[in-house]
């Protein structure tokens, strides 16, 4: 939802980044205000996932230019864990499997760390159990999730639901969801999309990185950006996504050139 005078959550200006010797991002500009949903689309290798990871501070990428302000603070002065505590959330395309660490222990440590950093109350295991079960009910997640090892042996869909559960618990200001819709069948997609919609408020922003417009049937974006070659080459509204679905990406690049 676009609101007049909504506060700016994220301001990206001329962002450039590389991994190893290859330049991936070549000057990205993007502004996200509270309450807005942005979709970033584009073909494989256009830099969408890199953009998401650079925002969260993945150590494999090196920022070579530009600036990013998160609620007015220079994001690059914060370590990855500090960005998370400040309210930036990354939903991973490929959530990591960690055998031996139970989901509930991981969720509680993440929750309490973030709560503590925000000066809020930390919860003991019993209190946390109540909270997490409530959230899981909301997101239609099976309670057996809690006792299992973090993402270990989870199906693709279960991993993505687990990401959304983490988002629900950490209550981010800005959530960047990297291909959260991949690996989901139609039913799972609806469940995950409903979860995201429930978590979206006028106070937070969402950036959905996706290949396909099908998730945008459930989560209506305010802006649709097309990325190619490490730049945003076109910005439109929801109708752009539908046009991309019908015509592919090629024409956008040609028009932009």
């Amino acid at each position, binding site marked *: 939802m676009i609101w007049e005078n909504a506060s700016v959550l994220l301001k990206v200006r001329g962002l450039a980044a590389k991994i190893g010797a290859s330049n991936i991002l070549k000057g990205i500009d993007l502004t996200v205000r509270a309450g807005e949903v942005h979709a970033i689309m584009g073909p494989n290798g256009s830099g969408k996932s890199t953009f998401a990871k650079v925002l*969260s*501070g*993945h*150590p*494999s990428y090196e920022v070579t230019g530009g600036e990013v302000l998160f609620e007015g603070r220079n994001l690059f002065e914060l*370590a*990855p*864990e500090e*960005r*998370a*505590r400040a309210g930036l*959330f*990354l939903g*991973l395309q490929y*959530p*990591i499997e*960690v*055998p*031996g*660490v*139970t989901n509930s*222990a*991981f969720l509680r*440590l*993440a929750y309490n*760390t*973030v709560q503590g*950093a925000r000066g809020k109350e930390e919860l003991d295991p019993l209190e946390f159990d109540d909270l997490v079960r409530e959230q899981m009910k909301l997101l239609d997640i099976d309670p057996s999730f809690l006792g299992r*090892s973090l993402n270990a042996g989870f199906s693709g869909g279960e991993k993505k639901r687990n990401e959304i559960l*983490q988002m629900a618990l*950490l209550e981010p200001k800005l959530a960047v969801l990297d291909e959260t819709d991949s690996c989901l069948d139609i039913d799972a997609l609806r469940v995950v999309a409903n979860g995201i919609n429930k978590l979206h408020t006028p106070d937070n922003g969402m950036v959905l990185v996706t290949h396909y417009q099908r998730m945008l049937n459930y989560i209506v974006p305010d802006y649709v950006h097309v990325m190619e070659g490490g730049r945003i080459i076109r910005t439109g509204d929801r109708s752009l996504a539908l046009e991309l679905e019908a015509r592919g990406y090629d024409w956008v690049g040609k028009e932009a050139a």
Partner: protein
Amino acid sequence: MSAVIQNLVNQPYKHGFVSDIESDVVPKGLSEDVIRLISAKKGEPEWLLEFRLKAYRHWLTMQEPTWPNVKYPKIDFQDISYFSAPKPKKLASMDEVDPELLRTFEKLGVPMHERKTLAGVAVDVIFDSVSVATTYKKKLAEVGVIFCSFSEAVKDHPELVKKYLGSVVPTGDNFYAALNSAVFTDGSFCYIPRGVRCPMDLSTYFRINTQESGQFERTLIIAEEGAYVSYLEGCTAPKFDTNQLHAAVVELIALDDAEIKYSTVQNWYAGDENGKGGIYNFVTKRGLCKGTNSKISWTQVETGSAITWKYPSCVLLGDNSAGEFYSVALTNHHQQADTGTKMIHIGRNTRSKIISKGISAGVSNNSYRGLVKIGARAEGARNFSQCDSMLIGDRCGANTFPYIQVNNNSAKVEHEASTSKIGEDQLFYFASRGIANEDAVSMIINGFVQDVFVQLPMEFAVEATKLLGLKLEGSVG
């Protein structure tokens, strides 16, 4: 990033001090004369001297094993002193113990004074090669439990020692067991009579203090019919630039319906971060489930030593007997470990379980080596093995060498293995949820070793968790 992981795994060794204690050291070198001298110093009976000489003569014909997946320069066995004892040696009570020695154990956190002893743990302390003090002796004697130094056992209970010494690990079993049998100086002895459940955990702390002495201790534990004992062993050593040899032999015997639970936290000095110094830990540990329904369970947390070569094993002779092996082996810097177990199924319906967790960091190398052997007579034998490896960083190694020999069609043998890595992606995942690297590593490691740590007695589990933390956490902040 690799600098982060580097910092996480760099922790100084806490137990690296040397105690300034006057020692009675036999000159370096090994010969029949040296063995006679050791035996005479200890006032041993003739049969024990014969045991030693037989082992020595056998040892002379043997070669050092070269099959372990470890590398080290050839050991000069004539450059080692085979006996080192703190003076004075004969102690009537704890008050006569050299105060410097007591301070040493205080630094180590060893509960030697009875009043300071953790409730329910009796402690025997082996300093260099000699047993210094055994606590709770009286209380244990009331229920018939014998818990004393090996030397005392030779004097006071020669019939038991004679009957069981070498019955599980024969003098010529392997190169280091033969060497130990020839020169061992002391150790612990424990006897649980029929039907007695030992009222407290028994504990031994081993300490190597002298630079040029080897430590060769001998542990013998006998659980009579229906007896139960839980035995804990801890080890530390000072820092030296040279390598010290530790070649121990542990023998366990469980008769009908008896159970022995043997737990080790091994933190010998591992050498510095460049691989200089450290203990060569070449140890033979074996338990014999002699009786029906007997059970022997090994739990080990191996974090120290420059080189570890150790396979606590179970010979499942009695029908329905059970063997267990739970292991966490952590290597860092230039440490090398080749460790695992042997489960030898001889009796019917024998069962064994192996849970091994290897953690490698730095440029270390960590190998699991295990044998599961099902004999022809072992109808209905079952084994389950799980061997998991975790790599921290990308310069270390992990290997698994499982050997399985099945000679009975009714046997069931299962083997599972996995390898995982704490790298950039795991740490980033935790960081993206607000969790700092140090907490992430600690959580991942604790989760990884959980299946083994639940087997440790409470105090030991706490100690072992702290130890892993010390070895792996650090100056990230």
